[in-house]
């Protein structure tokens, strides 16, 4: 990309079970993210359909904009803590931000 590097950050997207939203966002903040955005979602993956029809079957879609270090800290932590037992995927992409000092 053409922009100067200090405007580049990582956008980390986490899709997982709604049941763990509160614990998850606590972890994310403790690991150094300055913010996060959550939307309700449904979907399907290796753990089957999660159609949000029933309380425990809803998904959440969490986006975190942060620097590479923080992103890797979060992924490492979530992978160790939740992957084994919860429906969860994560992916990361480069984003160009305004006000880089915020993230």
């Amino acid at each position: 990309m053409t922009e100067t590097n200090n405007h580049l950050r990582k956008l980390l997207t986490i899709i997982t079970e709604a049941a763990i939203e509160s614990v998850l966002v606590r972890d994310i903040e403790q690991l150094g993210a300055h913010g996060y955005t959550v939307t309700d979602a449904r979907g399907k993956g290796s753990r089957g359909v999660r159609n949000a029809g029933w309380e425990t079957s809803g998904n959440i879609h969490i986006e975190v904009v942060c620097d590479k270090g923080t992103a890797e800290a979060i992924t490492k932590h979530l992978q160790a803590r939740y992957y084994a037992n919860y429906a969860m995927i994560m992916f990361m992409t480069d984003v160009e931000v305004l006000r880089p000092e915020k993230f």
Partner: protein
Amino acid sequence: MSAIDPIILFFLLGLFAGLMRSALRLPAAVYEFVSMLLLLAIGLKGGIELAKQPFAMLLPQMLAVVAMGFTLPLLAFPVLRYVGRFTRADAASIAAHYGSVSVGTYAVATAYFATREITFEEHMPLLLVLLEIPAILVGIVLARGLTRETHWASIAHEVFLGKGIVLLLGGLLIGWVAGPNGVSSITPLFFDLFKGVLAIFLLEMGLIAAAQVSALRRYGLFLLAFGIVMPLCSAVIGIGLGWALGLSVGGAAMLATLAGSASYIAVPAAMRISVPEANPTLSLTASLGVTFPFNVLVGIPIYYVLAEKAYVLLGG
């Protein structure tokens, strides 16, 4: 013999629509609204009754019911672990579901009893609340053992401040404090509409139960058998306890219904956090896909007949 209750027909309608892959869906908000109304209404009803009688007299019943709440999962666990060959976590989680109660099943039972003018101890919602919690604690201990790591504080918070308990207990206290006259002004919403709201709730429950069937096919016969036999055993225990506590036949049948019902709100939420390695599909399939339909369609009448027979035998 009175005709089949329309609320049951609503459940069957939901079940049919779900199995036929109909486009019918209830928005989550509607489900939450009706279940909230049911929880509050049941709590209020119970609270009003508590306002009428000395609390102390109920203590023995309360203690006995809590004891039952601790016992039932302990009976279910070995069966699940060694007959069902489930992992320790799964066995513990399913056991917790069956040791606890289903408010929806209780609501259907009250409707069933009402149409047949069967009386029962009106403070039953108090016992309902008490029965909801112990099984959760047992389930966690069965899965984790009594290790130092278990964060009992956060578990207690999770359990006692879950949606279901707060609304049920809250309604109970409000009914208790306000008393019969106090709540008269909110009767139209909470009591007059009760059965209509219950009908909507059962329509949704039918849709949900239908959604479990595919999973049921996967997990096979044992879960199906367990989901029917376990409630029957629990019901017998409930009847025995009801008799021992000197409850009316209706009261004993209601206690049997509580014992025979399986949780699908409080327990799944708690287990997902406290015993994450347990597969939630297993317990929900049994609880929503087998036991709830069984209880609603045939269980409740059976429990009442059993209670009658037992009271004849034992002399109630």
